[in-house]
């Protein structure tokens, strides 16, 4: 099964990434809800990389590799944009977002709640996000 996709940084490519992940997950007989959650978590990271880390620059690329270590599924998403600073991340207060009419800032909260482990690594200008989910 093909486990690698590379796309340039436009929001239009989020759909092909989701279709690629859905296609991969299809073979694993997961529930609809779990499949959707996993696709969502990958979509959220890719959207952040495309929009925030690479400013939708179509000359830049992100790549995604999926593999299946024991009882898990792992997604490795890489780019050369601005690194995500986890130390500056704060869990959103949704009530406050509603009050002030804030549009963004809940994507990483979804990823953290869906995935079992989320890692961000950076070295030599290359950033990698690793997402792990137990599937057995």
């Amino acid at each position, binding site marked *: 099964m093909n486990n690698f996709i590379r796309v340039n940084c436009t929001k239009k490519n989020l*759909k092909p990434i989701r279709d690629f992940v859905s296609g991969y997950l299809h073979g694993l007989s997961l529930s*609809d809800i779990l499949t959707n959650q996993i696709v969502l978590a990958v*979509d959220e990271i890719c959207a952040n990389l495309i929009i925030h880390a690479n400013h939708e620059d179509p000359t830049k690329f992100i790549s995604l590799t999926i593999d299946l270590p024991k009882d898990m599924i792992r997604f490795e998403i890489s780019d050369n944009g601005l690194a995500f600073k986890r130390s500056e991340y704060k869990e959103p207060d949704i009530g406050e977002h509603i*009050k002030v009419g804030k549009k*963004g800032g809940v*994507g990483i909260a979804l990823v953290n*709640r869906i995935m079992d482990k989320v890692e961000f690594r950076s070295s030599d200008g290359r950033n990698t996000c690793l997402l792990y989910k137990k599937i057995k």
Partner: protein
Amino acid sequence: MPMKITNEPKDTTIIITLDGELDASSSVLLDEELSDPEIMKYSKILVDCKNLHYISSAGLGVFISHLQRFEDAQIKLIFFNMQEKVRNVFEILGLDLLMTIVSNYEEAITVSNE
């Protein structure tokens, strides 16, 4: 499949039908729809989610960002016909407790008249 948004005004109610996937790319269309000043003429906004197959944080964020404005104007925002996997995304963030999500059109009408 691109996102398709249609609306059907009926007296004081407007039914907005979402068809497709609401992601970081397509959610701008929803934002335009909900930002239209015309929408403030209605007292009930019913959102038909039957053919909404996917929602990401960008789509949720659009609803989050308009909710207070509608509440302040005493406009009821009610979601109906939502697929279970989509409802689950609202639930992960606890939005099902902050927004009104009902099973079907009849229930949406009942709740909108309360």
